[in-house]
């Protein structure tokens, strides 16, 4: 399946109709979830109205971390199979992941002011997430420098795989250290948040994930088209 999709022509045939479908389905889900989160849920007894920020903050955090996991998987795929589409996928994921990691920090900071009384605290969760944001920026710069110098993409791929070390640190930071950030409230097996307040998250999370996927497809298509142009210009110059 992966090898079949790794053919650029086959990939483009699938990506062209999928790009708008994923993106607009994501927009619809995210907008509905945001509307529901702003108007259809009760305020929390402790956090009051500011709890509504979780409907954008939690998906941003999950996509910031999930984005790096996908980038690392694509990088590993490139290192093993040397397929250029895997390298393109990793490079397309990086800016989107950086934006979502940045949004996690910004929305968390905005939530912290009325809830904790501070915009920022150097605790384990916030600092490790900030590090992930910087690692994304470093990856984007490294991949661009590697492409400009005609590199084969191995160095950014190794960096992508090595960066996964941050993911368990972020995930378990609230367990390993005594932090201001609250412990895990949403896990794979359940949630400590009451259903009456949780449900809009089931729209904003898949909605923003679909937008993320649509954006990655747009960036991959752009990179494939740029490669076509460069190859064609080289052939024309050689004639």
């Amino acid at each position, binding site marked *: 399946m992966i090898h079949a999709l790794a053919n650029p022509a086959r990939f483009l045939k699938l990506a062209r109709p999928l*790009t708008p479908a994923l*993106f607009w389905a994501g927009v619809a889900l*995210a907008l509905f979830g*945001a509307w529901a989160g*702003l108007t259809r849920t009760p305020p929390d007894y402790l956090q*009051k*109205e*500011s709890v*509504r*920020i979780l409907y*954008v*903050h939690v998906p*941003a955090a999950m996509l910031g971390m999930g984005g790096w996991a996908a980038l690392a998987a694509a990088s590993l795929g490139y290192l093993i199979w040397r397929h250029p589409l895997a390298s393109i996928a990793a490079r397309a994921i990086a*800016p*989107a992941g950086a*934006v979502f990691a*940045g*949004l996690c920090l*910004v*929305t968390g900071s*905005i*939530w912290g*002011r*009325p809830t904790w009384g501070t915009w920022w605290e150097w605790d384990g969760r916030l600092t490790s997430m900030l590090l992930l944001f910087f690692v994304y920026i470093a990856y984007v710069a490294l991949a661009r420098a590697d492409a400009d110098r005609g590199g084969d993409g191995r160095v950014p791929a190794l960096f992508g795989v090595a960066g996964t070390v941050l993911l368990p640190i972020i995930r378990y930071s609230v367990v390993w250290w005594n932090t201001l950030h609250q412990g895990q409230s949403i896990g794979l097996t359940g949630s400590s948040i009451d259903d009456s307040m949780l449900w809009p998250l089931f729209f904003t999370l898949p909605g*923003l994930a679909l*937008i993320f996927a*649509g*954006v990655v497809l*747009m*960036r991959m*298509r*752009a*990179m494939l*088209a*740029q490669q*076509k*142009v460069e190859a*064609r*210009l080289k052939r024309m110059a050689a004639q």
Partner: protein
Amino acid sequence: MNHWPFILAAYGATLVGVGGLALASWREMRRAEAAADSLKRRP
């Protein structure tokens, strides 16, 4: 403390961040694919 200015700021930042990312990616894709198509049409 009124929490609504903070809530609206968080949703506004998300809208600007995600909207800006999507718009920039879409424009880059359109520009690159238009350049590839115009080169393909050249003899």
